[in-house]
């Protein structure tokens, strides 16, 4: 499977995702944001970081960069797109995903391992997980507070487009297990075709027991499946 990771000035998880993809035998290429042509890819990843120093709004400037037109075209042609953390913010700024990520409710940057529940395991991204499986996974963000309008929220529920929700270790989804104030504890969403996934947690940080755990591996295995 061929993957491309788009690199913006200020991306800082681009090499982490490269390591994860290559460990899983993806044929990966790094693509600088000023490129106007994308290599043929089955998967495009918008990595985490602080593209353009979060100027204006997180992801706003990256969302207008040269390569983004190609990413939008590929997305419309059905290419799989994964946006992690800042990548999720960029996806909302491009309009490929609806909604937005507000500043964390308690105004603090949060970097810690939390728990998420897999709500939909029937997608290209999550088919190797069990439904309602609980993953321990790292988050590291200042703007991860998911917000959207009522129509979109209803659509997300009705079409089963909520990928993950923040929960506790036992799977309880409530205010106590909501780290950043996200609407209904939402940690990741799909577009209606389910070929685009945006998520705040970092699966690429959970691929090796030596440094964390392996709860992120199945996301990559799902993509290869």
């Amino acid at each position, binding site marked *: 499977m061929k993957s491309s990771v788009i690199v913006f000035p200020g991306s800082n998880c681009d090499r982490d995702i490269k390591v994860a993809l290559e460990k899983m035998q993806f044929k990966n290429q790094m693509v600088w944001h000023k490129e106007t042509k994308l290599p043929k890819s089955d998967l495009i990843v918008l990595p985490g970081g602080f593209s353009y120093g979060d100027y204006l709004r997180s992801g*706003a400037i990256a969302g207008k960069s040269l390569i983004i037109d190609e990413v939008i075209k590929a997305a419309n042609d059905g290419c799989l797109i994964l946006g992690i953390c800042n990548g999720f913010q960029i996806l909302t700024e491009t309009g490929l995903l*609806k909604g937005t990520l507000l500043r964390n409710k308690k105004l603090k940057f949060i970097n810690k391992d939390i728990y998420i529940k897999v709500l939909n395991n029937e997608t290209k991204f999550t088919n190797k997980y069990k439904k309602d499986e609980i993953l321990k996974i790292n988050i590291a963000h200042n703007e991860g507070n998911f917000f*959207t309008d009522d129509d979109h929220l209803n659509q997300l529920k009705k079409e089963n487009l909520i990928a993950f929700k923040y929960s506790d270790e036992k799977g309880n989804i409530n205010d106590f297990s909501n780290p950043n104030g996200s609407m209904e504890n939402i940690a990741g969403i799909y577009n209606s075709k389910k070929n685009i996934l945006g998520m705040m947690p970092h699966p690429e940080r959970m691929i090796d027991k030596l440094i964390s755990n392996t709860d992120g591996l199945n996301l990559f295995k799902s993509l290869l499946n």
Partner: protein
Amino acid sequence: MKYSITVTLKKDVLDPQGKVVQDTLKNIGLNLKNIRQGKYFEIEVNEKDQAVAEKKIDEMCRKLLVNLIIEDYKINKL
């Protein structure tokens, strides 16, 4: 032609920064009813026709400066 643009969070969107500023003002004895924090831009365009200029500024707002899901904006001629 020069314009100012004020961007604020919509009424029903939580503004935690504004809330902290409000609490701090109260703490130093300056009471107030409500506060909303926002952003301010000044933009100069090379246009003589006011209608054209304003259309351009509005496009800038909608395409980049403002996130229409959560923010409102006001354009003023300077």
